[in-house]
Every structure is written in structure tokens, then in C-alpha cells.
């Protein structure tokens, strides 16, 4: 397919997207997904699939509200979750149901366990501080799959390698906005330099709290959290687990020193036992 990104007069349409912040090379960029204005249109899912040539992930009926995608996977790099909650809120009085919609994506963690455990160096951090798999290197060992605290990255069936959101690395290198953010009609998915996005999110959460939306919370904006803050963070209207997100994700490699120390001690224990039992009691 062809992406039309030039107007008839040759102007670059992608750079005219409303609210697209300018960013420099070698500046950390990311997503701020404001789920309070997500309308569940799945344009992000479609745009991502089209731009990145992501294969079909099945024609499924999951009976989960409007969510027939299910979850992020090797073949789904944006996933819109649909939650239906009973409510007494007068605005939803007619249906008695509150809708929560949220477009999930790879978090591009500051402390990315997937990248840290990758034994081949296939996963790397780009100049934009995003986390990307080099498909010509990955040998499908699957370690990153078990390391990710969000269940984002997975092995592609029939291909054997692992795949996930690249934050449109190719588009970033071309100075463009990632496909999902560009396709989002409500600016629920905002792309830009992470610092700017954090400021914008802080203002937005304050506004929502002022409006009485007390449950609104930022998720992944804190550099002090277990993964050092997300490169792609969220504004949620309920607890993270309601959306299928872990409430307090931690990068497993934070405990690596403990683990290596325990293993070193056990290794010497093994050596000691072997020496004592095999060489210790010579009688003859």
C-alpha cells in the first residue's frame, strides 16, 4: 500500500498534524496515551498494522465488549482495551454502564528488562531512547518474553523471532510521527519529547481532578518506579489492573546482583560438597 504523506503542492502533511511536537534527534521521545479521551475507534491498531506490515492476528470473536484483539502480541503492537463498568454516574444513567477504553502499547521502559536479558544484542536502545528488536539478529531464544513485566513482547508463530512496537523507528528517523499517534483522531495518543509529554500529562491530570474525576491517575510517568519510568505512559481512569496492566511493574534485573550472589554462593557450596564428599574421607 502507499502512504500519502505529501499534499498536492508537495508539502509534508505528516508535519502538519495538530499537536505534533517538534523533536530533535537524540532526544528521548515517547507516547502519552490519555485514555480519558480514547473513543475506541482502533485507528491506532490499523495504522500500526499497515505502516509496520504486521501480519493478521486472527479473525476472533472474544465476547469482551468491542475488544476482539485481546492483548498485545508479536502481531499486535497497539491494542485497544474495552472495559464496561456498572456505574451510578448520572451522565451514564441511561445505560448504567461506564466505558473505559485504552490503547495499550510497549512501554519502552527506561530500565527495560527485555533489552537487558537479551543474549544476542538483538534488542537495543535507539538514539531516541526507545527499545527496538533487530530482526536480523534475533534468534528467538524467548528470554525477553519472560522478562517483560507487561507481557508485551512475544514470539511470532511460524517466524520464530520476537516482535513488538518499534515506536515507528523508521518514521522517527525520517522526522515523522509514529503511525498510531498520527492516526489517533482525538489526540488520545500523543507523541513527542518525553519531558514535554510529562508536563502536559501533569497539567491534564490536575484539570481532571479539578473536574472531580478523582480516579484519574497517571501510570508510568514516575522515573522512580520499578522500571525507571515508561517511555510510553498513560492516563487511566481506574486501577491499572482493570485495563490488564500490572499495578507495580518492576524490572527483574533490579535484583540481578542478589541473584548472581546467591548463585555464586551456591556454586561454591556445590564445589565444597563435592570436594568434601569425594576427596574428604580417604580411608584406604
Amino acid at each position, binding site marked *: 500500500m502507499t502512504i500519502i504523506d505529501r499534499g498536492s503542492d508537495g508539502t509534508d502533511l505528516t508535519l502538519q498534524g495538530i499537536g505534533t511536537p517538534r523533536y530533535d534527534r537524540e532526544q528521548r521521545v515517547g507516547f502519552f496515551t490519555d485514555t480519558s479521551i480514547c473513543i475506541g475507534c482502533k485507528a491506532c491498531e490499523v495504522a500500526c498494522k499497515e505502516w509496520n506490515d504486521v501480519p493478521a492476528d486472527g479473525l476472533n470473536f*472474544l465476547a469482551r465488549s468491542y475488544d476482539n484483539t485481546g492483548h498485545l502480541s508479536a502481531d499486535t503492537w497497539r491494542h485497544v482495551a474495552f*472495559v464496561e463498568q456498572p456505574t451510578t454516574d448520572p451522565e451514564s444513567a441511561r445505560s448504567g454502564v461506564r466505558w473505559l477504553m485504552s490503547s495499550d502499547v510497549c512501554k519502552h521502559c527506561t530500565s527495560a528488562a527485555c533489552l537487558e*536479558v537479551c543474549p544476542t544484542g538483538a534488542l537495543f536502545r535507539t538514539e531516541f531512547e526507545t527499545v527496538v528488536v533487530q530482526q536480523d539478529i534475533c534468534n*528467538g531464544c524467548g*528470554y525477553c518474553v519472560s522478562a517483560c513485566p507487561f507481557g508485551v513482547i512475544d514470539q511470532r508463530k511460524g517466524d520464530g523471532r520476537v516482535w513488538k512496537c518499534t515506536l515507528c523507528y523508521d518514521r522517527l528517523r525520517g522526522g515523522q510521527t509514529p503511525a498510531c499517534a498520527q492516526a489517533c483522531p482525538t489526540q488520545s495518543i500523543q507523541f513527542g519529547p518525553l519531558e514535554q509529554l510529562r508536563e502536559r500529562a501533569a497539567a491534564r491530570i490536575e484539570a481532571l481532578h479539578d473536574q472531580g474525576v478523582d480516579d484519574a491517575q497517571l501510570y508510568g510517568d514516575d522515573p522512580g518506579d520499578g522500571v525507571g519510568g515508561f517511555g510510553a505512559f498513560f492516563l487511566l481512569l481506574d486501577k491499572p489492573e482493570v485495563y*490488564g496492566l500490572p499495578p507495580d511493574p518492576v524490572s527483574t534485573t533490579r535484583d540481578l546482583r542478589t541473584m548472581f550472589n546467591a548463585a555464586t554462593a551456591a556454586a561454591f557450596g*556445590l*564445589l565444597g560438597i563435592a570436594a568434601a564428599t569425594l576427596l574428604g574421607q580417604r580411608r*584406604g
Partner: protein
Amino acid sequence: MVPDATPMSYYGQPILKPPTWKWPIAAYLFTGGLAAGTSLVGAAARLHGDRRLAGAASAATMSAIGVSAGFLIEDLGRRSRFHHMLRVVKITSPMSVGTWIFSIFSSLAGASAVAEIGEKVGVPARVARPVTAVGQVGSALVGPALATYTAVLLADTAVPAWHEARRDLPWVFAGSATASGGAMGILLSTLAPLDPSDGFASGPRRMAVVGAALEVGADEAMHRRLRAVATGDTDKPDIGAAYTSGSPRVLAGAARAASVTGAATVALAGRRDRPRTRLLAAAGALLVLAGAALERFAIFHAGKASTTDPVYTVGPQRLRLVPPARRP
């Protein structure tokens, strides 16, 4: 409204992806430990001057490590790219560290085995024997690392039943490898009986018994630690519950039974060295090996089970954020 006692989830869907690793990885955990344990028996026999047992142990080590390499490559999504593991040395990746441990171990053990064969086909003993000895003792010194890095490999994941067991897993694996090595030593010396007047004859038996005791003891400590990580759920109150149903439960129970009876049999049979007790010790050794293998499969499957239920992921994290005392 009464607050929901169970941690919430998105349509009961798991948060984590289950490990992509299949049975060859669980099998490797066992064969890798077996190779490591057997290398120690071989080196001890070599140092003791028992060239027959040392040679047999060398062959067993090479078989175990060869099968291990097969398992590891078999499980890759792109097998033809197995050598990409050797592109980097990466201290933050236990799999990278393990690859190098595995490579060094198998190179040393391989050099030893080749030199030993070389001696038989005419290479002068003064050339072959030092290589055989240095390779065998060298691999035995790397062996303990080979046996325990796999514990870090499992623990350094988001898999709740593995990560929360991070302090105990290395001891379980060390015990398991020790028991396996001792058991293999018993079997090898059953095939080629040692001189019973030689104190070394009882070495593998002691090693198997002490190893099995460590394995069972560390396993118990691990289960206790997992039971201490609460989820706040009524049906699955803690991460230890990953071991209380389905295949992990059966495997863990069978592992414990096999290791205990195997070690007891070996200990009893070792009191007197006669042909009949030798066979009994061999039977005990087989049980110890079965116990070690079952233990690895139990841990492997419990880890997988702990990823497929969101309770094990969400529960402890939610309690960490909001301790029970502070809940409304």
C-alpha cells in the same frame, strides 16, 4: 458495595506472556546439572588416580553436555542462528553469561575427552595425559557455575514463581546437580566396580546423599518463601499456590518422593559393599536422578502456571502498593 476480595483483572486475562520455552529447556536444566555434577566426579577420580572411573565420567559428561546443547538449540525460534549467542558478552543477561560458561565448560571437557581418545590411538601419553587431566579438572571447576547459572536464568524474569524464588533456586539447582553427579558416579562405578578397600568408592554415594538432602532442603525453603508472598486472593492466597494444582503439584510431589527414597536407598546400600548392595545403590541412584529431573520439570511448569493467572502478577504488586493494614 462490598469490595472485591480478588485482585481485579482484564477479563481474567493473564498480564504476562507465558514463557516460550518448551520441555527441552526443562530437560536442559537437568542435563546441564548432570554434566556439571558428573564432571566433579570425573575430576576427583582423575586426581585420585582412578583412570577408569575418570574416563567413564568424562564420557558421561560429554554425553550430558552434548544432549544439553541439542536441547538448547532445539528450543530456539531460529535454530540456524544459535551462534548469535556468541556475538556479545553481556553481564546483564544470565543467558549470555550462561552461554559463555557453557562454552568454556564444554571446550575444557571436550579437550579432555579428545586427548583421552588420542592417547588410545597413539598420541604419546606425555602429551595426551596433561591435556586430559587439565581439561577434566578445569571443566569441574567451571561445573558449579554451569549448574547454578540456570537458577539465575529462571529467576531473572517477570515470572512470579521463579523471580520470587531467586534466593533459593541456586541452592535447589546446586543440590540437584550434586545429587545427579553423585548418582551418575554410583552408576558408573556399578558398571566398572571400584576396589572396595579404596575410600574413594564411597565418595559418589556420599555426594548423592548430601546433594539430595540439599536439594530437598532448599526446595522446602523455596516453597516456604513462595508461600510468604501473598496475593490477597482467596483461592490462590500466595505464589506457592502455583505448586498446589495440576502438573506442578504432581511433579513436585514425585520429585520429593524420588529424591528422598533414592537417597535413603543409596545411604542404606552404602553401609556394606557387596554385589547385591551395589545393585541396590544403583537403583537408589536412578531414583535420585529421576528426582532431580522431576524437580526441574516441577519448577519449570510452576513458573509457567504462575504467568497464566493474573492473580500471581497483580496480587503481590497491589499489596505492595497498598498494604492490607492501609486498605479501607
